[in-house]
């Protein structure tokens, strides 16, 4: 499935605000714009609903990158949900860094309902950026079955 070569197709999860970017994505579609198909969209009422746990879980489930898209500052349908998203993403990037995950894999964009073009552009760009970064293989030595062999090889060999 995932390979590190050029033909690696990044899996991106996009958390889109219902009022702007989601409509923007729609617009990109209805106006038949071309954009990378790697983005898997999850619609939320507001970028402020994006719980950082969602982002981590998405990484755990095999996403190579996460796009959080909300309304332009000042345009939030709920007044300032997008600023909350901004704050969370800023702190989250610091956390990702310390977990050894390239912070470029988490991206925050302001995309209005009118910016179908920007939406297409962003998802294509992001896909290329992730392609360059390569697949994110989370070291998940967590599930009992996935243990045995792999861990037996973990020896204290100097």
């Amino acid at each position, binding site marked *: 499935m995932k390979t590190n070569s050029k033909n690696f197709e990044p899996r991106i999860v996009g958390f889109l605000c219902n009022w702007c970017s989601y409509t923007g994505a729609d617009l990109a579609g209805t106006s038949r714009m071309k954009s990378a198909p790697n983005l898997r969209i999850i619609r939320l009422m507001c970028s402020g609903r994006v*719980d*950082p*746990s969602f*982002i*981590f*879980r998405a*990484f*755990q489930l095999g996403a190579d990158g996460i796009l959080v898209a909300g309304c332009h*500052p000042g345009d939030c349908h709920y007044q*300032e949900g997008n*600023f*909350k998203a*901004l*704050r*969370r993403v*800023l*702190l*989250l990037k*610091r*956390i990702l860094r*310390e*977990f*050894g*995950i*390239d912070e470029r894999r988490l991206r925050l964009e302001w995309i209005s309902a009118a910016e179908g073009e920007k939406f297409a552009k962003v998802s294509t760009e992001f896909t290329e950026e992730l392609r360059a970064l*390569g697949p*994110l*293989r*989370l*070291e*998940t*030595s*967590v*599930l*009992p079955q996935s*243990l045995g062999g792999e*861990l*037996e090889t*973990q*020896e*204290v*060999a*100097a």
Partner: protein
Amino acid sequence: MSKPKLALYWAASCGGCEVAVLDVAEKILDVAGFFDIVFWPCAMDFKYKDVEAMADGDIDLCLFNGAIRNSENESMAHLLRRKAKVLVAFGSCAVDGCIPGLANLTTREAILESSYQLTPSTLNPEGTRPLPLVAAPEGELDIPKFYESVRTLAQVVPVDYFIPGCPPQPPQILTVMSAIMQGAVLPPAGSVIGAGEKTCCEECGRPRKEKHLKHFYRVWEIETKPEECLLDQGVICMGPATRSGCGALCVKANMPCRGCYGAAPNVIDQGVKMVSAISSVIDSQDAAEIDSILDQIADPVGTFYRFSVPNSILHRKQPSA
């Protein structure tokens, strides 16, 4: 009828959990009286072979504390899972990975290097490292394999119940024990027992305000007022994201909570939840200002994940590609 069989074991932990069990004081005798303690290496001498000899599921209750750090911890986990009807992850190490779990933010190699080479007091010109198997002049010597990552018990074997806390507070241990001894119906498997359903704030009792944070202080920077919520005073306190049960001991001692009782119910990742909460209440809409405020949080991961790195969604620092 014969007494129910009880086993206690520690893997990679500090022993505090064991002391906590002893700290139920007089009551320990009741426990000892009620159960037939078939395995408790720190207090009584029974052999691994005896356990191995038991029929599977022969042990009625096994309290397992400590994380899984090396090959030995792991095989003990597997053995006791086989032998025990009910396996309980006992204490923060077994439940979340605890402080030793911070090791998942670094690598096995780094740990060995610093312990046996870089530390200033170490005098090791040959760069000797401990090896799992050593041929001494007189014969072979072996020690367990030191793994790359610390894992929680549930990440190694299926676990029936979880008793959080570093250490679990004796009153909580007592409640659980007496409940079992009175034959109370066990909660559904997978439940957390010996803890509350709310968060530390419930037990803290300090009056709280709406949160608008513009500045974060480190504990050494200010003398906090004992009658005001620490978070309101700008000191990061994990209380809001931490399960109740300890009695808010640290906060009552005027120190911020660090989250040893683990995530609240319905929360899958204690650290990231607190990240969400804290960042949400930062009182600024300007990216640059927000960043400068965040700069005041020394060591975000070590703070929000102090006790839960191995049990967090991301589990460990990824090897840099």
